[in-house]
């Protein structure tokens, strides 16, 4: 790992479901497991409720990586929300990849309420991988762009 990458602290946004992953992350804390502090958690009732636009908004707002995590299959609090989400992510990933958006920066996990240790692990792993990829500057550049008619933007 070169020096620049070591100095770079990735900003990770995690979209998690309330019933499994959020509780799991809570358990990580109460179990006093130490893990990377780069993650900001946004809690949703269910992975099925996570609009794909939120992922794009996270990148536009400066995220370098994204975690999407919810209940394991058959464990959804609403029976099938995670199944619907899974199908949506399959389609969405395909489209993003075709557009050249870096799908390696979006990590999907199932983390249950009992998997406090796994949460620490997936965050650490995501941070390490995003650190390796570096900041997502190509997306940020586009996000802040408005017109090429002013000298300031040249």
């Amino acid at each position, binding site marked *: 790992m070169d020096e620049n990458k070591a100095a770079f602290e990735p900003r990770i946004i995690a979209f998690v479901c309330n019933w499994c992953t959020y509780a799991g992350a809570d358990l990580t804390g109460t179990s006093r497991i130490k893990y990377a502090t780069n993650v900001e958690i946004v809690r949703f009732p269910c992975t099925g409720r996570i609009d794909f636009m939120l992922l794009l908004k996270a990148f536009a707002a400066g995220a370098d990586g994204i975690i999407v995590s919810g209940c394991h299959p058959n464990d959804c609090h609403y029976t099938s929300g995670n199944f619907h989400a899974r199908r949506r992510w*399959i389609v969405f990933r395909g489209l993003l990849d075709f557009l050249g958006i870096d799908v390696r920066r979006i990590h999907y996990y199932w983390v249950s309420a009992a998997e406090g240790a796994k949460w620490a692990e997936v965050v650490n792993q995501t941070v390490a991988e995003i650190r390796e990829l570096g900041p997502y500057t190509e997306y940020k550049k*586009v996000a802040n762009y408005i017109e090429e008619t002013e000298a300031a933007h040249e």
Partner: protein
Amino acid sequence: MNNWNKQIADMLADGTVALVIGYEEGSTPQKTRPLFCHDAVAAERLVMDGRCTHNLAVYLTKKELLPAEGRIGVVATVNVLKSALQLMQENQIPEGRFLLMAVGPEGKLTELPDAESLRQYIAAHPLPDNPEVAALIEKIDAMSREERWAYWQECLSKCVKCYACRAACPLCYCTRCIVEDNRPQWILPWASTLPNIEWQINRVMHMAGRCTGCGACYAACPLHLPIHLLTKKLTQEINREFGTERPAKGNVLSTFSPDDKENFIH
């Protein structure tokens, strides 16, 4: 006057249909355009041939254009029929309201009064895949991710947000589109690269498994941006992942299978 024009003129004259939507000659010999026939005389202007590419199904959900009473005839291409069927499956148009009609090669008019007859006609008249579209998708697939991003960024930076792609699509029928919502403002409403990309992602995601592949979005784009590649690619992905069969009611994303792949979820 063709025989089928005469038949339609008679239907308008005797009140079988109150309005017929079809095609007429356009501004140049190379193109035709949509025509609303309110009377038998106008039916003389109807044409049907390979130049008829507008997806007339877009008018079927525009209530302000349609008479309150009576049936509405549509002289349709297969693409129009496919979209009309999809609209019926999504409960956007009632089955009996429209009399869809196809014109055969010898000018024979086939009436398709219900969803079942549409289904059969569409099955019997499969549309060939456009090799140019397939080749373009292959070309983009072969690019590196960075090249793909550069390609689409350059391409969509030109978009002026006229929303012709939305307006021309029969399945973009929401009365209030996500881009018109400002609480929250999901997509910034002016034309610049990122909001343009976000708009296309939204348009295409909302088409997942619903797009009939007619290409009206691309044909409508005044800047000729190849946005139909996005819907086409999405359809390819869906076919590969979930098969080519579509649910009879609802759509691919409103259902699921416990066996859907999850090799990307850890």
